[in-house]
């Protein structure tokens, strides 16, 4: 199964007039894995998904599924099934007929295809609503029908276009679990487009972060989260502060960096940098401690501009003289032991291991664009 549902994308570009929606993308998605594509609106993730589904043709490049070139094969004949963002359930057909649709167009007789459809509805726990119309269903139920309709074709690859975005918070978390369970059960490849970071981190075996038609980083969630490739990835995925400085000295792979305000920082691993180079590095927000005095190295000083209680931790925002806020996630006991008020100046420090050199150059803000 796993090889049959492996996807190879090589050199794929999609032009809309002069605009490169997808720009020379290479990507391998292992068969049977759960892949999340993430990025702000307009980053090309949906276009890439639609090219895999065959709803758009690449301007150049090659897409193969299970080793078979499907770049120009017809939609619906390449072993993919797409679940649409708004589900696109046929409003004039009952749930059974919605799910049986692909069997109908293949010419299967009415009774056997309805029986199969009801079986599939049973699988998503909706058999009791089999004769209803989609308009009578809740959002969560509609989504399960859309899943059933996609899965009845026995696809090698299930493509999901922002499948959870139309649901409320509670349902979203529940469906997230269900999607993951389903994927484990079926063992086929899931490609899930989203713009919500926790969704990607929670579900994926492989996270693909995109920006401006390019893949910034494709790796496991842990790798993406701990070792972001560029300032953009660090900011977009969250949980990191991005700092900039000049390399002062190197020894082996380690480097010492000085920021504009004169603080010195140790980067345990920054291969390939040269003294004098301007580089950026990230610091995990939850690895930072507060000190009574300014630390000698690996720390900084700033004025508290905001504090936000988050339940298990407190988010403290510092103004450090740069344009970017410096955020500290403080354990709630530490915060309540010594509350910090807005306007106070505090000192922060962290272990060198919490610092990570950002090799990539994409320095964009990384906040998801509004639609």
């Amino acid at each position, binding site marked *: 199964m796993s090889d049959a549902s492996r996807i190879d994308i090589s050199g794929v570009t999609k032009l809309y007039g002069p605009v490169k929606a997808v720009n020379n993308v290479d990507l391998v998605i292992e068969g049977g894995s759960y892949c999340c594509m993430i990025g702000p609106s307009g980053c090309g993730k949906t276009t890439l998904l639609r090219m895999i*589904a065959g*709803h758009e043709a690449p301007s150049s490049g090659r897409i193969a599924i299970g080793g078979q070139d499907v770049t120009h094969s017809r*939609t*619906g*004949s390449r072993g*993919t*099934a*797409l679940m*649409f*963002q*708004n589900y*696109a*359930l*046929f*409003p*004039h057909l*009952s749930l059974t007929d919605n799910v049986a*649709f*692909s069997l*109908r*167009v*293949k010419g299967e007789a009415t009774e056997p295809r309805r029986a199969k459809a009801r079986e599939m509805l049973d699988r998503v726990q909706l058999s009791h*609503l089999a*004769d*209803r*119309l989609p*308009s*009578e269903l809740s959002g969560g139920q509609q989504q399960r029908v859309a899943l059933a*309709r*996609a899965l009845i*074709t026995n696809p090698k690859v299930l493509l999901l276009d922002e499948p959870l975005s139309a649901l409320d918070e509670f349902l979203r978390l529940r469906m997230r679990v269900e999607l993951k369970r389903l994927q484990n059960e079926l063992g086929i490849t899931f490609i899930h487009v989203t713009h919500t970071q926790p969704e990607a981190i929670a579900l994926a075996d492989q996270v693909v972060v995109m920006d401006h038609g390019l893949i910034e980083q494709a790796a496991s969630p842990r790798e993406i989260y701990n070792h972001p490739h560029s300032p953009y990835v660090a900011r977009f995925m969250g949980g990191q502060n991005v700092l900039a400085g000049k390399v002062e000295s190197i020894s082996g792979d380690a480097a010492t960096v000085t920021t504009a305000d004169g603080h010195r920082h140790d980067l345990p691993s920054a291969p390939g940098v040269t003294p004098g180079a301007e580089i950026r590095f990230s610091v995990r927000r939850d690895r930072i401690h507060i000190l009574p005095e300014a630390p000698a190295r690996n720390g900084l000083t700033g004025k508290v501009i905001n504090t936000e209680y988050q339940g298990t931790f407190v988010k403290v925002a510092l103004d450090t003289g740069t344009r970017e806020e410096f955020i500290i996630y403080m354990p709630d006991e530490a915060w309540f032991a010594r509350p910090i008020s807005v306007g106070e100046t505090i000192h922060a420090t962290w272990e060198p291991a919490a610092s990570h050199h950002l090799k990539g150059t994409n320095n964009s803000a990384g906040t998801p664009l509004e639609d």
Partner: protein
Amino acid sequence: MAQATHRRGLGFYLLAGFFALFVIFLYGPMLVIFILSFQGPTGGLTFPLRGVSTHWFGDLWTSTRYGDLGGAFRRSMILGAMSLLITAVVCLFAGLAFRKRFIGAGPLFYLAITSLVVPGILLGLGISQLFQLLGFRLNWWLSGLGAHLSWTLPFGLLIMFAVLNRFDSSWEEAARDAGATPSQTLRYVTVPILFPGLIAVALFGFTLSYDEMPRSLLTVGGKNTLPIEISNMTTNVTTPALYAIGTVTSVISFAVIAAAFACIALIQKRRARAKRGA
């Protein structure tokens, strides 16, 4: 709505009164001719009613004074039916095409709008002179039909735009994704979903053609349609037979409207019944 919490003030009753007057203004005169068409045999064009009879309806059938009403009625029905069919089919596909960009979309749209705003008789003049220049004979089923289509198609197209506004093209993509061919997508998805809207387009196709007069006048050739016959009657018939033919043709129009609305209601009811899980 928050408005619902306000009490109905004087303004509401004044406006309601105005609206009621407007409705009377709209329907009153028609009601009067419906009543007067049942004049007794000695009755005239105005009140009082001298008895109640269906004399003038019978007169329409039997008298030769009114020209070829039967033939005109038959031609108008056939033209209406042809316009209905052509308008529904042509506008469906044109509406689908206008969702995409294509060369000439703008000029074609403006040509359609031009056809709506240009005086009908002028277009009739153009069509009839074009036919004569090309050496074709004017015929109600060719030049006449063309003139009717120049009126029904732009309307149908505008209705189709409104109908397609609520049509989500991801339904078609979902069908393709399930492996449907273009013709299967059209038959199983696009047409069934659009069907109530298509009935509305067809309704326009029929009634606009059935009642069309200025464009027909110069284009139907020797054989007249019903509205032309009736408009001739307005100048040379001075008996309630004029009202009788008015009643007949209005009843047909209303019957067609009612049938169209009933069709739409039936479809929606059927879908609603499916909803209840029957």
